[in-house]
């Protein structure tokens, strides 16, 4: 068993579930742990109204607990497979954060799902898999 976990980007979508499923197989085969990361997109430089300022802390608490709930089925499924699994929910830029966490945790690889969209916006603005492929410090697997 290696102490380098597989890092999986998770947000509760079907694509993310497929990524977890695939990561489960890899982890069993290689005998390593899985670390699930749920990133809530956030910029400290975005603009909020006065009302939003007042409610921000409250909303954040709600968002965090909702994210934890979304993570639960994935955690349960991996636990059933007897894979050691940890998770964290973070605010920030998903690409930057996942790369940073991969480094901090010494992950052996990153696995993310792909929404399957080839929409114009994804092409112009880039998507998480594209960002990771370009910037990740470790190998990246994109699950279709």
């Amino acid at each position, binding site marked *: 068993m290696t102490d380098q976990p597989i890092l999986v980007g998770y947000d509760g979508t079907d694509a993310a579930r497929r990524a977890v499923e695939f990561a489960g197989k890899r982890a069993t085969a290689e005998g390593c742990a899985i670390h699930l990361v749920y990133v809530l997109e956030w910029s*400290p*430089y975005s603009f909020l*109204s*006065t009302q939003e*300022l007042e*409610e921000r802390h409250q909303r*954040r608490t709600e968002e965090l607990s909702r994210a934890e709930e979304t993570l639960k089925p994935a955690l349960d499924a991996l636990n059933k497979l007897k894979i050691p699994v940890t998770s964290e929910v*973070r605010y920030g830029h998903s690409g930057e954060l996942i790369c940073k966490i991969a480094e901090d945790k010494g992950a052996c690889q990153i696995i993310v799902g792909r929404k399957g969209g080839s929409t114009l916006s994804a092409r112009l603005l880039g998507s998480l898999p594209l960002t990771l492929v370009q910037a990740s410090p470790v190998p990246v697997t994109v699950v279709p």
Partner: protein
Amino acid sequence: MFWKKTAAASAVAMMSATLPQIALAQEVGLDERINQAIAPISNVIAGTMFYSVPIAGTEFPLIVGWLVVAATIFTLYFGFVQFRRFGHAIALVKGDYSHPEDAGEVSHFQALATALSGTVGLGNIAGVAVAVSIGGPGATFWMILAGLLGMASKFTECTLGVKYRNEYDDGRVSGGPMYYLSKGMAEKGKPVLGKVLAVVFSICCIGGAVGGGNMFQANQAFQQVVNVTGGENSFLAGSGWLFGLVMAIIVGVVIIGGIKSIAKVTEKIVPLMAVIYVTAGMIIILSNITMVGDAFAQIFVGAFTGAGVAGGVIGALIQGFKRAAFSNEAGIGSAAIAHAAVRTKEPVTEGYVALLEPFIDTVVICTMTALVITISGELNSGLTGVELTSAAFASAFTWFPLILALAVVLFAFSTMLSWSYYGLKSWTYLVGEGKGKEIIFKLFFCLCVIVGASMSLGPVIDFSDSMIFAMAIPNIIGLYFLMPVVRGEVKQYWAKIESGEIKKVK
């Protein structure tokens, strides 16, 4: 009275220069009746608030002195904090000290941006033009000075706003002068005085919200819309109440209906407008860079000689000080309500961030407007208010008045939204929280939009200015009592920085 002349002069000049008759055309029917009903009340309030004493042959409103003296005292008491900690303020806004764990909470940048959107607006466009058209280019010098001093007032009030805010169990936060006045003064052993100041502040803040934060904005937005839709021949001329009704419905949809999308759109456009405005100003200044030296010379000479200005040096000084205070609201207490929501363990950090507000608002944007007006040579055209700014920018970009009209309406709208919140917080402080009570205030706020658009400018400016400045009386009394608390916060904060307990994370 000096102030009366100002108001009247700007009232006339706010109308299209080519079509001065609008002023007459407008005062008929429903508009006139609303105007006649409100004007006597606003006259009394303005007369009291702007009680003036004769100094060097001109009338000096005491309230302006009150603000500037306070700003000077805070500047000295905190050892020129606005200059010594300017760099630190920038580092805080950049997020150099923000812990990654706190991502998702209100950042220093967000609190500053929101507070700025409430202050950057008509004051920077119309107010500056009024100041230089009456006080001459020299008024700019005093405006910059008042802006620099005001940074210390803002530092003091926003530090207290965070320190004494209420954090509720459900995670919401509420802060502002009403809380630091009541809680802070109770700590100082003066609970009754604190309570009285807090209540007086809240009442004045409601007045300021419906005055400068609402009626003045609605009024100016209406004037601009009439001007760009054909002036006297506009289908809207004389129908301020109709424009007000439409504006009131849009405001109501946002603040009562909770329709966030409209507010969201405004919030995206307003910063863009500000950027366009500043960029256009910078282009004009840079393309006339050879004249900038001359413009500054006019500003300095005007400031100390007061040549050609009613009231001489003092006349220029009053205009500069007054417009700076109205524009950046330092010492008024309003911004402390917005800044209080930031996520920080150290109240003083938000104070440092807040001191950038008068700098950006007054020292940068207002000065830019003043420079453009001085360079353009439109100062002697007899215009004032938005019309003067519009003409000055039009001398370089002929299409600019249209953009400016759009900017004025949007700035007015965003300022209304900010102030509706400040007013609401004061209202709930007085009567308690509750859906029904909040709706009553919001309906009243919308009604005032209609009234503001219908009235002629003179009484509106009188009422708006006086209610906003009235907030400064209880606020600054409280600040004097509480400034040692702020000094204590400063000391323990820098002790933590020196011991390495607080350090840069970037």
